[in-house]
C-alpha cells in the first residue's frame, strides 16, 4: 500500500461523490427537495447503462450517454411524482422527504424484481492503459473518471452561469418567492433541475461502476456520502460541495492509510460534525461574503 495509490483513489472517489453532492445540493436549494430517491436514480442509471452495453453496443461513450440519459429520465420521474403534486402544499419539505423515500424503496425493489439480486458489471469504458507518473501507476479508469466528472460538472456549472435557464435556476436557489415574482415558473424549472441533477447521478453511477458493481441497492452508500458532503459543504453551495469533497476524500485516504479502513466513516462524521459546529452553514459559510437577508 503506497501513499500514491491511496491518494489517487481518494481523488477519484472525491470526484464521483462530489458530482453526487453537487446534484443533491442544487436540488435542495432550488426546488427545496431533499432527494432521498437519489440513490435509486443512481442504481437505475447503472442498469440503464448496463442494458445499453448488453443490447446496443459496448462503446464507452454510448454506455456513458445511456447512463446519463437514464439518470435524467429518473430525475424527471421523481420530479413528476414527488415535486409537481405536492410542492405548493403545506409542509412540503417533510412530504417531499417521505415521497422521495417511498420512491426510493419502491424503485429499488422494482429493480431487484426486474434484474435480480446478482450484481452486474459494465464494460471498461475507458479501455486498458496505464500511465506511470513519478512512481504512481494511474490506470485508465482513474484518469477517465477524474477527467470526465470534472469536465461534465464544469460544463454544467458554466451552463448555469451563462444561460438563461441557468440564471432561472440560480435565482430560484437564492429566493424562490422572488423568483416567482420575476416570472420564473417553479414547475418548469423544477423539471430542468431534476433532469440535470438526475443526469449527474447517472454520470456518477457509470463512473463508479468502473470500480464497483451495479446492484439494486448499490446507490445507498454513494447517496449517504453525497448527502454528507453536501451538508458539510453547506447545502446549496456548489463551491462548498467541491471543497468538502476534496477534504473528505483526503480524510478518507489518510484515515485508511494511518488508522485502517474500518475507521473511515468514524473520522468522516467526526470531521463533518466539527466543521458544522464551527461553521453551521458548512464550508459555504466561509466562502459567501454576501450579506444575508
Amino acid at each position, binding site marked *: 500500500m503506497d501513499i500514491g495509490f491511496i491518494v489517487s483513489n481518494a481523488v477519484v472517489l472525491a470526484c464521483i461523490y462530489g458530482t453526487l453532492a453537487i446534484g443533491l445540493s442544487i436540488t435542495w436549494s432550488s426546488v427545496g427537495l431533499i432527494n432521498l430517491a437519489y440513490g435509486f436514480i443512481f442504481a437505475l442509471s447503472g442498469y440503464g447503462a448496463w442494458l445499453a452495453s448488453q443490447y446496443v453496443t459496448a462503446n464507452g461513450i454510448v454506455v456513458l450517454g445511456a447512463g446519463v440519459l437514464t439518470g435524467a429520465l429518473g430525475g424527471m420521474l421523481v420530479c413528476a411524482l414527488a415535486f409537481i403534486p405536492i410542492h*405548493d*402544499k403545506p409542509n412540503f419539505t417533510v412530504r417531499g422527504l417521505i415521497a422521495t423515500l417511498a420512491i426510493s424503496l419502491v424503485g429499488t425493489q422494482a429493480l431487484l424484481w426486474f434484474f435480480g439480486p446478482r450484481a452486474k458489471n459494465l464494460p471498461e469504458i475507458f479501455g486498458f492503459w496505464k500511465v506511470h507518473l513519478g512512481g504512481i501507476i494511474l490506470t485508465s479508469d482513474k484518469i477517465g473518471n477524474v477527467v470526465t466528472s470534472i469536465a461534465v460538472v464544469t460544463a454544467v456549472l458554466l451552463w448555469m452561469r451563462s444561460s*438563461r435557464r441557468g*440564471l*432561472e435556476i*440560480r*435565482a430560484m*436557489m*437564492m*429566493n424562490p*418567492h*422572488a*423568483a*416567482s*415574482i*420575476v*416570472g*420564473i*415558473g*417553479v*414547475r418548469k424549472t423544477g423539471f430542468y433541475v431534476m433532469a440535470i441533477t438526475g443526469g449527474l447521478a447517472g454520470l456518477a453511477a457509470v463512473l463508479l461502476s468502473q470500480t464497483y458493481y451495479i446492484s439494486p441497492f448499490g446507490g445507498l452508500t454513494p447517496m449517504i456520502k453525497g448527502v454528507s458532503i453536501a451538508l458539510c459543504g453547506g447545502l446549496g453551495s456548489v463551491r462548498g460541495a467541491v471543497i468538502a469533497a476534496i477534504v473528505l476524500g483526503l480524510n478518507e485516504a489518510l484515515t485508511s492509510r494511518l488508522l485502517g479502513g474500518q475507521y473511515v466513516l468514524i473520522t468522516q462524521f467526526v470531521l463533518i460534525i466539527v466543521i458544522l459546529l464551527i461553521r453551521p452553514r458548512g464550508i459555504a459559510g466561509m466562502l*459567501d*461574503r*454576501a*450579506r*444575508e*437577508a
Partner: protein
Amino acid sequence: MSAIVALSPPPALAPAPGKRAVLTVKGLSAGYGPMRVIHDLDLIVSSGERLGLVGLNGHGKSTLFYAIAGLTGWQRGSILLNGVEVGRTRSQGPGRYTHTVVRQGLALIPQGDEIFHGLTVEEHLDSGAFTPRAWKERKARKERIYAIFPPLVKLMKTPVGRLSGGERRMVSIGRGLMADASLFLVDEPTLGLAPKIGKSVLDALMSVELEDSAMVIAEQNVALLEGRVDRVIGMHAGKLKGEASAALGFQTRREL
C-alpha cells in the same frame, strides 16, 4: 385616510375617456388561510396613468398587489389584465400561476428586499427580462436602467447581497422595469430608505416613460406622492376608500 381632504365617491368602473383599461379588478377578495384581507374590491387602472395607493400598514395594499400576481393564500373575483382574465378562484398554491400573469404583462416590484443575494446586479437585471422579446433586447434595456439609476453602473459585477439598502431598492425597481410590462405595481418604494434617497428613487420612478402602460405605487407617505401621480386612492381595511385626482389638486396635511 385623514390625509386626503378632497374625497369623492368610489371610483366608477370605466377607464378614463380615450384610454384603454390596463387593469380591471371586480369583486376581488383575497387572504391567507382563514383571514380575509381584501373585501370585494373594485378597481380600474387606465393606460398612461400613475396611480397612488395610500393606506396604513396592514390594510391590504401589498395583499392587493399579491392577489393580482396570484401570490396570496387564496383569492376569488375577476382580474382582467389587458383584457385577459388572470384572476381565478384559488384556494391554495400561491405563486403557481404567477409566471403566466407576469407573461401577460405584469411587473411587480415587491416591498422590501425580494432579491437574489448571490446574483450580480447585471444578472439581476437579466432575470427581470422574462419575455423572449425583453430577453433579446436586454442589453439596450439595461442601458436604460443604468440611465435611470446611474449609481448601478459601477456596481454591475457586484453581488446584490453586498449593496446598501438604497442600492438594493434601485436593483429591485430596475429588475421590474426590465420586463415588457404594461402594468407596474410598485410596493412602497421608499420604505426604510433615508428621505433623500427615497425621494430620488421616487423621482427615478417618475422618469419612466409609461406610454401605453400604467403604474400603481403603494405608499404611506402621501406628501411624497403629491404632484407626482395622476390619481390617489385610499385603502382602508381591505377596501378602497375615497379618491382624489391631481386635476382636483389634492391637498395633504403637512403635519402628518
